[in-house]
């Protein structure tokens, strides 16, 4: 990508205001988005556009705005949905062969809420199939290319969403994050990626991966846009019993005084495994926060090095359970030659699932099987408790924590594809936040070796607004 040559979208709230007043037409914005998607086809960020549906919605929004009707806070704003979000009437594949041709019979709550405020879904973004991965190389269709270097991965699993936002295909995209999947691609593509507190956004209508870890969040070009999208999609939903109430104070209220705020450098996320150039960038970012009045100390979560082992037991266990619904009978691929039901199950699944889904189903089945459950699954849940307690202790000393998103920048396509464990280790600095259910954000912190660097900021559960406010301050200091 040649930064600066891409068409720029105005801030989301300005777009909405201008569509409401008639100064901008939703119909033109949809065309602008579809053009940007077509112009950047070689990056393979998009699985399918939803142009027909988008044009109809835009026409309706423009007509209503012309009559003076109130459209909403996202009036006419195009967005891109990760292809594990159900958008009514559109194909939803989760980038998997087993769901190819699946036509969403209902719609995700998050998409309903975005549409209720006037946003328009223009396309579905690529991902690692079923969100299993850190690079989009596990997509059953194709690998998305990094906008800064086409030989490199965009990160994953929301790699299509992150690349799409970086390439200005739309002002924002939706993502899901189970162990890194919003924040890692945001860091690798130089955009903002926000993982909210567990349960803050309804997951109804989003293809389930690991239910005790999955969250939904925005990818955007700046913190203010991400906060506005979060404010629209957050809150309790009768269709997802794990949802929590949203903060009564809007997430868009980002007023914040950095002076005296206690920020702990998380020792385990700033260790010597980090590439020196990246570490220097991050240290400079932290120095700027200190110079602006933040009280910077160091904190430690001693059990953090175990977090990935905990994650790679809990995640595949829950994956194997969630993927059991793909049985070839009710939807998705079915093996036509099966003689009986048993064969229909095993052949439809064996032929329909890609390698990584199978790998996770196998590990999950192993750790949940009789005789191993206590030693693996229950053990991992207990170490999860230990980790959560250490997070609590750390947050009794500081208001926020800061660290690297990833020890390296975007890696080369194919570099880790043959070594699943090496790929899993890409999530090393990310999975802790999912295990503890806390909010975490990745914001751009400069460029190293011509590739973007991400800074991770974390806050205690339910402190999402404070975290966004801090992130906005940091964003301004780093600009």
């Amino acid at each position, binding site marked *: 990508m040649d930064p600066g040559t891409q068409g720029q979208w105005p801030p989301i709230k300005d777009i909405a205001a201008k569509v409401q007043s008639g100064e901008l037409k939703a119909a033109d914005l949809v065309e602008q988005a579809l053009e940007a998607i077509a112009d950047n086809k070689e990056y393979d960020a998009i699985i399918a556009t939803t142009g027909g549906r988008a044009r109809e919605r835009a026409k309706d929004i423009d007509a209503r705005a012309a009559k003076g009707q109130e459209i909403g806070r996202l009036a006419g704003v195009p967005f891109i949905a990760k292809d594990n979000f159900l958008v009514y009437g559109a194909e939803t594949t989760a980038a998997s062969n087993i769901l190819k*041709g699946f*036509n969403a*019979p*209902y719609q995700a709550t998050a998409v309903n809420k975005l549409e209720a405020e006037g946003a328009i879904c223009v396309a579905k973004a690529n991902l690692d199939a079923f969100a299993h991965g850190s690079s989009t190389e596990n997509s059953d269709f194709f690998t998305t290319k990094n906008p800064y270097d086409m030989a490199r991965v965009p990160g994953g699993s929301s790699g299509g969403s992150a690349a799409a936002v970086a390439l200005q295909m739309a002002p924002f995209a939706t993502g899901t994050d189970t162990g890194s999947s919003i924040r890692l691609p945001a860091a690798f593509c130089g955009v903002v990626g926000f993982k909210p507190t567990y*349960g803050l956004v309804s997951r109804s209508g989003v293809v389930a991966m690991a239910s*005790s870890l999955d969250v939904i969040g925005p990818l955007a070009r700046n913190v203010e846009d991400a906060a506005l999208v979060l404010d629209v999609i957050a809150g309790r939903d*009768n269709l997802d*019993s*794990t949802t*929590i109430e949203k903060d009564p104070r809007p997430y868009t209220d980002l007023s914040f005084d950095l002076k005296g705020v206690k920020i702990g450098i998380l020792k385990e996320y700033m260790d010597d495994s980090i590439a020196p150039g990246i570490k220097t960038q991050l240290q400079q970012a932290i120095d700027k926060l200190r110079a602006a009045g933040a009280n910077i100390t160091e904190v430690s979560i001693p059990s953090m090095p*175990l977090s990935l*082992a905990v994650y*790679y*037991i809990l995640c595949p266990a829950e994956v*194997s359970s969630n993927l*059991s619904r793909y*049985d*070839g*009978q*009710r*939807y998705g691929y079915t093996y036509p030659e099966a*003689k*009986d*039901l*048993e*064969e*229909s*199950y*095993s*052949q439809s*699944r*064996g032929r329909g*699932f890609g390698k990584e889904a*199978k*790998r996770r*189903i*196998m*590990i999950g*089945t*192993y*750790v949940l*099987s009789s005789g191993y459950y206590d030693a*693996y699954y*229950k*053990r*991992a*849940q*207990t*170490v*999860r*408790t*230990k980790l*959560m*307690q250490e997070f609590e202790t750390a947050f009794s000393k500081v208001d926020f924590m800061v660290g690297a998103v990833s020890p390296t920048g975007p890696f080369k396509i194919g570099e880790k594809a043959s070594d*699943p*464990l090496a790929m*899993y280790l890409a999530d090393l600095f990310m999975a802790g936040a999912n*295990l503890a*259910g806390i909010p975490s954000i990745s914001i751009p912190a400069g460029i190293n070796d011509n590739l973007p660097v991400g800074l991770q900021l974390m806050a205690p*559960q339910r402190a999402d607004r404070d975290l966004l406010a801090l992130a906005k301050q940091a964003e301004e200091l780093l600009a």
Partner: protein
Amino acid sequence: MAKLTREDVLKLARLARLELSDAEIEEFSQELSDILQYVEQLQKIDTGDLKPTNQVTGLTNVTRRDEVRDYGYDPADLLKNVPEVKDNQIKVKRMLG
């Protein structure tokens, strides 16, 4: 934890209703062994009398009234993805050989 044998992999695949090719069986017995070896570092950790965590935000027993709710889903929409429909019902292969 020893290396997973071919038989171990086949048993798991059977439990998961997953037909695997010979190449996949071979590949998985090595890869799954590596991954399991990595996660086994948890066995050595002293967790004292800590309890396992299932739910991180402290919600318990979220219930609703046991009543029919209309979510507005169209049965035709729900059936359009079904591989084989007969008399508005999902048809499956025979269960007994």
